[in-house]
């Protein structure tokens, strides 16, 4: 079992962010910072700038500082295994946030307390099903992938492709990385659109790339939402605005606001409750019907 946690008024808490360079990550970090006071945390935040090994080293420096709890959004599945192992060895309970680590090596309820987060494969499936519904199961698709090698990007591809494969009239004509960035997403989309003019759908692994794709579609003289259906993921303010403007068809939510859930889960654990291995977040679907309603609490 993972190391126990005493019930205290004040905790020294480590949050080892993997990178802080996109709105989603920033919102995630902020949600931990925002809940800290209310939850009685003295929060140590580190930033691994996208390097898995630095993230391990950040966790190590937290262990050295004898934190009570570590919240870890692992940059990647496999490389963060040692971090989890070491924390356990030093008697510090770890909560994984938003991404998992390799479950064949370390297990929830044993090496770490639990995984708090969404199901990336599911998100991919949901997105694919939405496209099927909107297109009537027919058409050509471009997929804009997340950063090469990231777990989320890999899982999204798996989920998305598995559903599309079931529809013979649907074809993914191109699947390229846009690095989760608007600029790159735009450039890639511009090029892909040029070589695949008959494309009718785009799914981007985050709203930023979707927004970039929209710019590219417009620049090509086409109308997003009419000529080409665009789907996103996350639920950013800009993304929801694009739905309201009719440029984006849907967004599969992937909330970064783990702070409250993390606080609650930790309290439950401290009180001795047995925690389920996966604390799932409720991911909604945003579309024209509800975008306006949610835009004010989007990040």
């Amino acid at each position, binding site marked *: 079992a993972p190391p126990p946690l005493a019930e205290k008024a004040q905790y020294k808490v480590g949050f080892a962010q993997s990178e*802080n*360079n*996109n*709105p989603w990550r*920033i919102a995630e970090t902020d949600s931990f910072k925002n809940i800290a006071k209310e939850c009685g945390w003295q929060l140590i935040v580190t930033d691994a700038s996208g390097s898995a090994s630095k993230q391990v080293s950040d966790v190590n420096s937290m262990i050295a500082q004898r934190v009570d709890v570590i919240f870890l959004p692992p940059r990647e599945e496999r490389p963060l295994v040692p971090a989890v192992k070491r924390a356990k060895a030093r008697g510090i309970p770890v909560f994984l946030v938003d991404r998992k680590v390799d479950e064949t090596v370390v297990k929830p309820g044993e090496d770490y307390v639990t995984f708090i987060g969404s199901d990336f494969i599911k998100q991919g499936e949901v997105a694919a099903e939405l496209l099927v519904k909107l297109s009537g199961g027919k058409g050509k698709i471009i997929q804009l992938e997340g950063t*090469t090698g990231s777990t989320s990007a890999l899982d999204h591809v798996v989920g998305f492709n598995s559903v599309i494969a079931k529809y013979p009239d649907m074809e993914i004509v*191109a699947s*390229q*990385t846009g*690095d*989760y*960035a*608007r*600029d*790159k997403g*735009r*450039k*890639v989309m*511009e*090029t*892909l659109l*040029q*070589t695949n*003019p008959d494309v009718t759908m785009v799914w981007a692994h985050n709203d*930023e790339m979707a*927004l*970039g794709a929209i*710019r590219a579609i417009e*620049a*090509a*003289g086409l109308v997003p939402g009419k000529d080409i259906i665009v789907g996103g993921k996350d639920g950013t303010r*800009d993304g929801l*605005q694009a739905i309201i403007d009719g440029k984006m068809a849907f967004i599969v939510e992937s909330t970064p606001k783990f702070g409250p859930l993390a606080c609650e889960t930790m309290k439950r654990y401290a009180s001795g409750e047995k925690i389920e291995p996966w604390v799932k977040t409720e991911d909604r679907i945003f579309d024209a019907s509800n975008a306006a309603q949610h835009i004010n609490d989007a990040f």
Partner: protein
Amino acid sequence: MINQQIDKNESSGSIASSAKFKALLKNNGALVALIVLLIINAIFTPHFFAMQTFYINMTQVAPIAIVAIGMCLVIASGNGGIDISVGSVLALAGALAPMVFMSEFGLNNPGIAIALAIVLPLLVATSCGLFNGFLVGHYRIQPMIATLILFISGRGIAQLLTNGDIQTFNNDFFQYLGTGRLFGIPIQAVILIIIALFVSWIIKTSKFGRYLLAVGGNDKAAFLCGLPTFKVKLIAYGFCGFCAGMAGLFTTAMNSASDANTAGLLMELDGISAAVVGGTVMMGGKAPVIGAVIGALVIQMMTYTLLANGISDSAAMIAKAAIIIGAIYLQLKNKQKH
């Protein structure tokens, strides 16, 4: 003797011109690479011959090419000249522009704000370049390390200013910088061509150009000739900063958003590759500005070709490496023969 030469040239005009073209190709690995890429595209890439292809490549190449021009001058200024901070400066300038016209003052004075949103980022970017130039020229810190400082901190400053947020905006005037066309040519390309021709002309005909190449060729000798070596370096680095700033404005305008976190990432590599593929020698003392632009076109066409043909970006990296080495090797080989 000179007269004789002219006679000879005239009598064999057509032969001379075709020989000239051959010589041009021989001396310009970048041009060869570009032509090869165009042929490959003509054969393999679907829908390659379309106006839209031209537009896309023009708008996408503009930031790289402009940075490459700045990089070309910095490398030409000698003593290991290089500027690896261009990406960070690009991000900084790109982040500043929307901050200006989305500020309260900007919203109240839209006209002035647009002008300011262009001038201020360029000023800041130029200052960043001047700062680099100061470290290089005054403290004689090796350029790669001197510019490493802003490479690390520049983006941090941009992120601090924007709090890491992406700033999305809707501003037709400013977006014109990204999507506008002049005589049917994307506005960035027009600006790029103007800058390239102007700088190339300056290098060839002006006192500053001569100074730059002299300082790059032998800065001690240039100093003893009373040339303002420090000022020349300041201008070269400052101008490189300016170019990075311009690229930042383009990027922000294209996206109708600024993103301090990712804008211009790895731009220094593209800029350096383009400049060098275009014939800039790392030793300094040579500033082939037009070559740098051609080099940027090579880099851009390569990216486009690989992407358009669905080649994975991992394979694309290897291809890029090969073409950089290939183009430069062609150039060196032909130079050695002379």
